[in-house]
């Protein structure tokens, strides 16, 4: 017994240090990218731009944090961008109608969660593969949003509500605080709670998880509801930031969020990754997009760059897994 125990603990230590190394590589890449951008652009390393990067990263991380849980459970949620659009438009019209930001926020987050619930039911009860179900959901939501808005724009929200997106506290944008709160909640939930550990187990091996008594369906619905609710919350930050709501506010948010999760080291095949990694992924991706802006590269290149980053991240993931096996 003792002879088998020693190598196992040794292996664990190696696995641990492997994870830490992976994280170090990413932080290194982040610093390197920052250094390159500082060298290339005079504007990059200014307080204004760094705060801008942090604010953009905050929104991206928020959406990606919910998505991380879904991908940890070996699912995918392609509907988050469209979810932001619909939840945002509902929230905006409630705020306009009642004048109460709190009620609007409740509706936005509730709408997001309800969409997540619908995704969860499609995936678990109808057994539709998650990428097909949420991809279909994305188009349905887009359709409903355009129908609801009819090309209109809702704008002008109470100043108190706008603080959520464009306000500062001690010189730091409010969304950045939201980001750190969600980082803390996400890390605690995933690493320190039974539900979080069950999500890892489902992602690693759903059959084994079921056999060990994990309520797989309920946990899967939970991750989609969380992902949807977080998208609803993100929509509020978008509203507060741009002070208006249109049918297309979420259109360009899904691909970067997926890229942030994958670049952050969460495996597309489920079961491995961390919410902390997603934060680094979100920062890396924001730096790339911000750098492209500063270097005055046409924003049309952004989906292309994001596409290539996603493919590279998954390719590296597949390779590391193959070496691991």
């Amino acid at each position: 017994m003792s002879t088998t125990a020693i190598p196992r603990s040794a292996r664990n230590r190696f696995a641990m240090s492997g994870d830490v190394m992976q994280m170090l590589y990413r932080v290194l890449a982040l610093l390197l990218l920052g250094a390159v951008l500082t060298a290339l652009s005079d504007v990059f390393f200014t307080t204004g731009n760094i705060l801008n990067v942090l604010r953009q990263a905050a929104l991206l991380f928020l959406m990606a944090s919910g998505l991380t849980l879904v991908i940890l459970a070996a699912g995918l949620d392609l509907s988050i961008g469209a979810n932001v659009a619909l939840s945002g438009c509902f929230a905006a019209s409630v705020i306009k109608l009642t004048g109460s930001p709190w009620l609007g926020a409740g509706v936005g987050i509730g709408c997001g969660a309800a969409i997540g619930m619908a995704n969860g039911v499609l995936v678990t009860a109808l057994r539709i593969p998650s990428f097909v179900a949420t991809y279909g959901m994305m188009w349905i939501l887009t359709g409903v949003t355009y129908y609801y808005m009819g090309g209109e724009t809702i704008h002008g929200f109470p100043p108190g509500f706008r603080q959520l997106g464009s306000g500062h506290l001690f010189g730091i944008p409010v969304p950045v605080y939201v980001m750190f709160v969600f980082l803390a909640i996400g890390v605690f939930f995933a690493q320190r709670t039974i539900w979080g550990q069950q999500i890892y187990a489902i992602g690693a091996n759903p059959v084994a998880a079921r056999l060990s008594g994990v309520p797989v369906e309920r946990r899967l619905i939970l991750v989609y509801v969380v992902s949807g609710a977080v998208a609803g919350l993100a929509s509020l930050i978008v509203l507060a930031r741009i002070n208006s709501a249109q049918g297309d506010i979420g259109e360009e948010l899904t691909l970067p969020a997926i890229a942030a999760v994958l670049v952050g080291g969460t495996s597309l095949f489920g079961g491995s990754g961390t919410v902390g990694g997603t934060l680094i992924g979100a920062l890396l991706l924001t730096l790339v997009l911000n750098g492209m802006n500063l270097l005055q590269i046409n924003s049309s290149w952004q989906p292309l760059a994001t596409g290539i980053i996603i493919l590279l991240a998954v390719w590296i993931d597949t390779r590391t897994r193959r070496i691991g096996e």
Partner: protein
Amino acid sequence: MTAQALTRARLTRVPGVAVALILLCVVFAAANPGFASPANIANILTQSTILLMLALPMTLIIMTEGLDLSIGAVLTLASIALAMTAISTGSPALGLLAALGVGACFGLANGVLVAVFDIPPFITTLGTLGIAQGLSLVVTDGQSVVGIPRSIELIYSGSLAGIPYPILFAALAYLVTHVLLYRTRFGTYVFALGGNREALKVAGISVRGMLIRVYMFGGLMAGFAALLLTARLNSAHPTAGIGMEFDSIAAIAVGGTSFERGNGWLFGTLLGVVTIGVLRNGLNLMAVPSSTQVACIGALVILALFIDGLRGEA
């Protein structure tokens, strides 16, 4: 499942799509007298041709337990390549060649990423979707490409012995895909790729080579469809094909091809495409905006999958 059981399974599924199609037709004909006119029916069929040319290879791709989310974006990029080449050289043939080239490149890229690099199909094609869409925007600067030779427009509006050219093209595409799938070794291997990949390996067939060919087929068909799309719009537009992949996946799902078990049914896809075409046309006549039509298609698909699920358990 034996061949006989498969045929029986397919036959029991015939009513599902057909019933939906007939029901939709009856409802729309009752709601709008213009719906059942011969001119409108010809219109529905002609407008369904582009979708059919995407849905046919997509059926094969889904049968290999794959997916091609990039096919709409590739169609768009191919259409832009076609328009630009035809304008600068004055030759529609060279334009088509350029479109096929774009399609083949993306098909090859998708195939290699899926088969050689082992990247899951939906994420591969999500990535190439971003790339194709980005390229479309960059190349056109977000503007329409106009001023294509008049001969291209005739490909969509012209007809032979009373049958519009697009329908002839689509019929040819259907025939070719049918023969490929049901009458050649390639087709047998496609069935095996979804149902029994191990057997294929044991038989010494290159799974990678087969997968690459299936995705290449998708890219090439998108290239051909670009000819119809460009002719129809008489221009190329960087957002023209966005969402076409959703319509084609929806048509296939409604048509009874399963995402899990890898057994596809080409005629079901044809019926599914016509069903989507009827739905869009009927909603158009009722002045329902295009984005809302998408939501209706989504609802139809969920209904189809729900019924599919009930049948699977029965």
